[in-house]
């Protein structure tokens, strides 16, 4: 077995490299999910980068390429074609620590999230659940809540991420 290359923080200056136009627009006509990222003092984190990976409405995890689709003439970002579902999103938090995602309800019930930030030496995984699930049932009620998106209005859900503290989000280890 090879030893893995160690992780290092994304730092504060990824902003002109990793985010791309339409990074939070996985699909239109579906749902919106949004929230804040908070640190252990309860302050918003303005320099986090969230990545999302999910199944389509039917539960298929065979996302299409084309998330970052480029114009071969001048290299500019064309973005998704809007017809093929890529399943991947990438959104930096704004100055308020806020992020937003437009997507469809995944057929398997949850959206996978990977959190990067300055000060985070190794990324963290969590999940956004949009309904009940056996995985949630296995967690203590207090903690379970941190993984469930709250319906805010028709088609819009709220999901805050707390990196530390009283309301600390459940983060996942895949072994």
């Amino acid at each position, binding site marked *: 077995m*090879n*030893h*893995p*290359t*160690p*992780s*290092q*923080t*994304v*730092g*504060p*200056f*990824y*902003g*002109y*490299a*990793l985010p791309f136009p339409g990074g939070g627009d996985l699909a239109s006509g579906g749902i919106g999910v949004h929230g804040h990222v908070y*640190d*252990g003092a309860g302050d918003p984190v303005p320099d986090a980068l969230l*990545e999302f*990976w*999910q*199944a389509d409405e039917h539960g298929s995890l*065979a*996302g299409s*390429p*084309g*998330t*970052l*689709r*480029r114009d071969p003439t001048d*290299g500019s970002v064309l973005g998704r074609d809007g017809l093929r579902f*890529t*399943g991947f999103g990438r959104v930096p938090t704004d100055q308020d620590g806020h992020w937003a995602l437009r997507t469809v309800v*995944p057929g*398997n019930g*949850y959206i*996978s999230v*990977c959190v*990067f*930030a*300055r*000060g*985070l*030496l*190794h990324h*963290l*995984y969590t999940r956004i659940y949009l309904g009940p699930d056996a*995985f949630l049932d296995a*967690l203590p009620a207090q903690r379970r809540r941190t993984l469930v998106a709250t319906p805010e209005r028709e088609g819009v859900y709220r999901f805050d991420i707390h*990196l*530390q503290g009283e309301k*600390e*989000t*459940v*983060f*996942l*280890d*895949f*072994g």
Partner: protein
Amino acid sequence: MSEPLKQADIDQEIAARAGEHGEHPARDYAPYRSTLLRHPHRPLVVVKDPDAAELSGPVFGVTDVTTLDNDLTKQHPGEPLGERITVRGRVLDRQGRPVRGQLVEIWQANASGRYLHQRDDHPAPLDPNFTGVGRCLTGDDGGYLFTTIKPGPYPWRNHLNAWRPAHIHFSLFGTAFTQRLVTQMYFPGDPLFPYDPIMQSVTDESARQRLVAGYVHELSEPEYSLGYRWDIVLDGPAGTWMEEGR
């Protein structure tokens, strides 16, 4: 206001944690002060589910990159200032299998140690001929290649007189979302290594060495560029089954 933190204070803290085992840095590595309020206190919840969505991952393809994206010296009308280098290597999984057709992204400071980022206020010049962003897809052998310039070291505010060793930020995807990796590549022999809490957060000496590229003279191109080699191994769940060349 309390006394500003000095390098000697950070050095002591680094020494106290040196040699701790672990393939990856601990998230609660206090010498890097920004970790203090940004790491979870509770243990992570272990997921043992062969159907977990995270055992698959996003797919990238030829539409997601253009052929010039991996040459950071060709993105503007003029040549950037600095030492022209090539960085190449292979992306492998823990079983040593090539990670094929996956996206590799890099970003870096220019030769003077300045990022093209509004919040980088280091008083070093920007280079109109250098953006510092590149991307490519790995080949059939897991190989990647970038042509760029060697980034400069730069100051930051972790403590008084804190300087980052020269580094290139790397972002990598495997075939599973659990193989995601964001890391930094360093250059051999940099005198700033022992002072840098971000690099020293990898407390195991041999693990830390895996962050350092090798200078390979045979990879230098006469009259053109200096050659570095850096292989990358993606971590993943112990039981990751992966079909070759998905």
